[in-house]
């Protein structure tokens, strides 16, 4: 039975080894735990998982495995609607509430939910219609539907007590979720490369000894101090669909500013066209021509785009597609020019990676970037930095 458990963890891409599995068996044999599922959960976690970033994955795998063993009280009973309403109100921002109004309003959403609840007989995971976890249905938990209603795991399953692994308390530690400033800093540090450039003002002992021995007189050598020589050009999408992500973009920017010697940043709107600007408040008066950008910053700069790449495909592909003014050349042409000049460039996309496949504009831009588009999660950022640092 436990072999299945081990394989289940493996299939969830948890880095578990046979040695750790044997340790777990040894621990069970030596009677560390009593015959309780909770104890087994804690013991297997402490023996098999060595990084809190994997705790969430482990919780999910454990929950999945355990469903085959434990009989689950059905959830066909109704979920109190008042509670749901309260919960939904807590979860949604003003903006999302407006979006829901646009989709037909509360009543309609709640009615559908009620109907759906009556239809459904059992717990469900994945998929796109039923109430459950991890799917794209508007109802359920941990899904990505923007107009979704989150039905929490903790109270939704009436009669059964809260299961520790279903509480999923370690979600925030999973390295595929989005980042805070500190995490970004850690990831960006990977990009830091030291080089010696500038005035020689540091005593070079090794060279001095070598050269003195060779020339048979004291020959002092100096060398320039080691400096962070990475040059970064950041182009950030601002306004429009990016408003949701503006905070994240700002964090990304503030984190990266301390990490590099040369960091230049410019804003664009939705897609890169003839102009970029430095100060968003004076975006119409103080603009920089994109040509100037390409000429001013040498090709040793590394370019990082930050944007959700979510727009109508026309805005990328057609001349005059911009929502702000008439652009003579298509956005795609400009993106292509940037990738031609700068060998090292990536696109960071704050939208969750799962939905990229459903948005045509993301696909187009990803292709234009030569597939170098990464989500702004710690894992994605690390991949991006690896590409830039190569």
């Amino acid at each position: 039975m436990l072999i299945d458990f081990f394989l289940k963890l493996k299939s969830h891409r948890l880095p578990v080894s046979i040695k750790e599995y044997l340790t777990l068996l040894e621990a069970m044999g030596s009677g560390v735990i009593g015959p309780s599922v909770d104890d087994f959960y804690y013991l297997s976690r402490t023996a098999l998982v060595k990084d809190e970033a994997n705790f969430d994955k482990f919780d999910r795998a454990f929950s999945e495995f355990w469903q085959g063993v434990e009989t689950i009280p059905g959830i066909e009973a109704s979920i109190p609607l008042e509670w749901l309403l309260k919960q939904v109100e807590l979860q949604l921002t003003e903006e999302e509430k407006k979006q829901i109004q646009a989709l037909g309003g509360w009543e309609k959403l709640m009615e559908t939910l009620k109907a759906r609840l009556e239809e459904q007989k059992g717990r469900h995971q994945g998929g796109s219609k039923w109430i459950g976890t991890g799917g794209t249905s508007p109802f359920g938990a941990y899904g990505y539907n923007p107009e979704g209603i989150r039905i929490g795991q903790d109270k939704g399953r009436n009669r059964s007590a809260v299961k520790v692994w279903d509480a999923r308390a370690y979600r925030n530690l999973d390295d595929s979720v989005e980042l805070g400033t500190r995490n970004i800093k850690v990831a960006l540090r990977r990009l830091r490369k030291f080089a010696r450039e500038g005035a020689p003002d540091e005593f070079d002992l090794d060279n001095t000894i070598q050269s003195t021995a060779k020339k048979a007189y004291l020959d002092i050598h100096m060398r320039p101090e080691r400096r962070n020589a990475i040059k970064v050009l950041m182009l950030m999408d601002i306004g429009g669909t990016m408003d949701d992500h503006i905070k994240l973009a700002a964090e990304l920017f503030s984190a990266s500013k301390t990490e590099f010697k040369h960091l230049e940043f410019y804003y664009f709107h939705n897609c890169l066209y003839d102009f970029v600007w430095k100060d968003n408040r004076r975006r119409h008066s103080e603009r920089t021509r994109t040509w100037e950008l390409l000429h001013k910053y040498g090709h040793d700069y590394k370019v990082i785009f930050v944007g959700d790449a979510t727009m109508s495909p026309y805005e990328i592909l057609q001349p005059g597609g911009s929502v702000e003014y008439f652009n003579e050349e298509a956005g795609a042409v400009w993106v292509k020019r940037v990738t031609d000049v700068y060998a090292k460039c990536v696109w960071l996309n704050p939208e969750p990676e799962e939905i990229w496949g459903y948005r045509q504009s993301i696909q187009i831009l990803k292709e234009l970037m030569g597939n170098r588009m990464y989500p702004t999660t710690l894992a994605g950022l690390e991949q991006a930095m690896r590409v830039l640092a190569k």
Partner: protein
Amino acid sequence: MRFSGSAEYVATDDLTLAVNAAITLQRPLLVKGEPGTGKTMLAVQVAKALDVPLLEWHIKSTTKAQQGLYEYDAVSRLRDSQLGDSRVHDIHNYIVKGMLWQAFTADSPVVLLIDEVDKADIEFPNDLLRELDRMEFYVYETRELVRARHRPIVFITSNNEKELPDAFLRRCFFHYIRFPDKETMERIVGVHYPSLKKSLLREAMEVFFEVREVPGLKKKPSTSELLDWLKLLLAEDIPPDALRSKDRKTIIPPLHGALLKNEQDVHLFERLVFMTRAKGG
């Protein structure tokens, strides 16, 4: 030997289980968690609860794995040879035992704490693989094998500044100390300040968890900061009313310097308070 928390340390179920598994199977226990959640205290308290000696090895960025085993003091041997001291003939006189050696050769099992293992060089954990796995090492100078008489109970703490190698992780049990929930926190405070008035505690906890929830704080206050703050509140004899107001969000908690350690955080907090006040007024 079983550990089940102590009078001064509140251990959650999962933590006691991890500690007991490590003790029973004689494997090192790697402990991670937010700063100030009692990682180092754990080893101290386990040693106290089991009534065994505690050996602490604090790691710095310059610490080498070899220093935990032994060091050969060549300089004093050279000096002794020039002074004609007879000690010089025995090399054993110049081998300085490190923490691991002391732990291995102790008369009874001990608790060994390797504190902040992530501070050291990236190769540091790899250099200790055999020592922690087999609990033995070889002394080249004297050509002897030091083997543990009793396998020590090893606790290793990490603040996640560097990633630890897989080979090292495979040999350890792992526990991540979560930030305590309100209930556990009340128990922890009860253990430290048994005479604290219920009303003050309740108000203080509310304020504390509110401060923790302020979005964008650079450093969230942790357990140890709450304990410090309570100590200050007690010392200054601040009444519970001072923490309470009609709308709690409109006051800055007294002595907030104990909770927020970063001036940007203090500014952020003050700004938020100001904003709610402006909105309310």
